């Protein structure tokens, strides 16, 4: 998709000298002549489009609240993660005694458990996004720029990843390496997910390296590293940022699945997937034990996906699609 964009861009208008990949045909007429404010106006363009994306705006507010709650879990949660309230066993969601998400048969407050579990989910999601973006960008850039053996190995790895179901491979890895703590689970997930990002970066770099401005940069004596990181990388930022965002949601869902199946984050560490598994035995009567942690997961991932969608719309003006 991004390749299409880049192939089409020169038709609409001459490519911008640096920064942003938005075709400048949509720029207001009075700004088009001033090269020195072009870069800023593209930023403004992005900002205006992004701010108009209502779902993304609402999502940012909700997600910020969720992240803050997770960071300050000790202050936000009315009870401890494993704190047992003998008098409040099996209560449905109520504001009384602050059992917003109800309690289980032991009397543990599910709102507090969910808040601590969110911390794990967000930690894993953020860690996987950071790691896989960093590794994927560097390897994808090298593969797209130099081709050669790095590219060959990357493409063979992609073949392997495409042939085995990702969830199965991650389950095997987590079972053998021993999941346990969130950091470890994050590393295991990133170990597979970076390949997807590397492919995207490789694709953009492959098409960018043939562009005239790269030739110009080389003619004026710029070295490989300078061309890759000062000229090509800024022009590939759009897809990288969008995918890094979407990876957060993917990683959170996979972590929850691993923990639900018992191969991810292990008790006594809090994890939303494990919480849902805990609630399973009593779920036909105490439905909130399953519904509430799951709704929290849905809320987090929905916010992340909407923000990713908003970023994509704002960064790729020619792209209508929002898969």
């Amino acid at each position: 998709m991004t390749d299409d964009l880049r192939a089409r861009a020169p038709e609409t208008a001459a490519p911008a000298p640096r920064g942003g990949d938005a075709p400048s045909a949509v720029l207001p007429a009075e700004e088009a002549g001033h090269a020195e404010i072009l870069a800023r106006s593209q930023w403004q363009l992005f900002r205006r489009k992004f701010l108009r994306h209502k779902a993304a705006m609402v999502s940012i507010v909700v997600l910020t609240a969720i992240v803050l709650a997770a960071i300050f879990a000790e202050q936000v949660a009315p009870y401890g993660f494993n704190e047992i309230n003998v008098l409040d066993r099996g209560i449905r969601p109520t504001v009384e005694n602050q059992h917003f998400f109800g309690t289980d048969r032991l009397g543990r407050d599910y709102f507090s458990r969910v808040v601590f579990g969110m911390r794990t989910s967000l930690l894993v999601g953020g860690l996987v996004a950071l790691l896989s973006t960093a590794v994927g960008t560097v390897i994808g850039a090298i593969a797209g720029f130099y081709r050669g053996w790095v590219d060959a190995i990357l493409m063979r790895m992609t073949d392997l990843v495409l042939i085995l179901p990702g969830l199965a491979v991650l389950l095997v890895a987590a079972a053998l390496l021993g999941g346990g703590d969130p950091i470890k689970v994050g590393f295991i997930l990133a170990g597979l997910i970076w390949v997807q990002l590397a492919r995207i970066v490789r694709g953009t770099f492959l098409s960018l390296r043939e562009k005239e401005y790269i030739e110009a940069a080389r003619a004026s004596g710029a070295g490989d590293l300078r061309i890759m990181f000062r000229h090509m990388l800024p022009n590939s930022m759009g897809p990288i940022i969008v995918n890094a965002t979407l990876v957060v949601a993917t990683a959170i869902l996979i972590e929850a699945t691993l923990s639900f199946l018992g191969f991810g984050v292990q008790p006594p560490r809090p994890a939303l997937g494990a919480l849902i598994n805990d609630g399973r035995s009593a779920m036909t009567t105490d439905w909130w034990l399953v519904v509430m942690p799951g709704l929290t997961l849905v809320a987090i991932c929905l916010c992340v996906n909407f923000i990713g969608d908003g970023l994509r719309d704002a960064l790729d003006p020619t792209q209508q699609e929002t898969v």
Partner: protein
Amino acid sequence: MATYALRRVLVSIPVVLASTFLVFFFVSLTGDPLADLRAAPNISQAQLDFVRESRGLDQPTAVQYVRWLQSIPGDGFGTYLRNDNRIWPDLQRVLGNTLQLVIAAEILSIIVAITLGVVSAKRQYSFFDYSTTTFSFFGFSMPVFWFALILQIIFVNIFLATDVRIFYTANLSAPNPGTGLAFWVDRFRHLALPIMTLMVISVATYSRYMRASMLEVIHSDYVRTARAKGLREGTVTVKHAMRNALIPVVTITALSFGTVLGGAIVTETVFGLDGMGLYFIRYLGQRDPYPIMAWLLVTAVAVVIANLVADLLYGFLDPRIRYD
């Protein structure tokens, strides 16, 4: 076309072998298959040594791998680590059950997704379009296992409240499923909820692709021509636009076969279905490398076949693509 298919199969053999070797290597690197056996209270060193030698666990990894490969044609993946039951008959049984589930879910998903995609593209930015988009976003953002549990909660409670059992919430068949039509009705009532679970993510994905591809086609010149020469709108949509819009979607459905099998792991675990997914989880929990390796090989072959079908279908649907 036949040459192309043959070449593709030949090319994918090393990839499948490489992937199984990597997993095998990884498994032998990180896991001691005898760890659980060793922890068992009434096992002697002699028994452990016997298992180790008969399995060839004292050999280098490469030798073990070749032994494992050699065991496939004659021995059908050999036996489990803990007993002498054969792996292949079990794998055949669970593969059949999973294919019933996955194929039914995929066919229904494709029908629903194409309908949703075409209608939302025809009425872009309508209420219907926005609802489908919202549904898709929920589909992407929802843990599959959680949706399965919600379905179980709802249908168990319907049963408890009204004493009417619409769909079963666990297992593949009733204890006495009967024969013929009665058997398949029973099977359907057991598979309905797992199928719904698998469909959510597939419909969410495919309908987005269908909508995008339909939007692209609907504004093309030949569709305008078809309309201009006085064809009815329904004919234009179905016979002209939809046919071409289907091409990328067909590819996506075949390519996402691996993902669907991954979804089946979760779905079958929640509903306790005797399929590939539950089989995988059971032996992964027991840390038995042999059935896991067999599972991965069968799955990899299934994915390769699905990808090949995708490629061939692509050439069949789009005559501009030639394989020679």
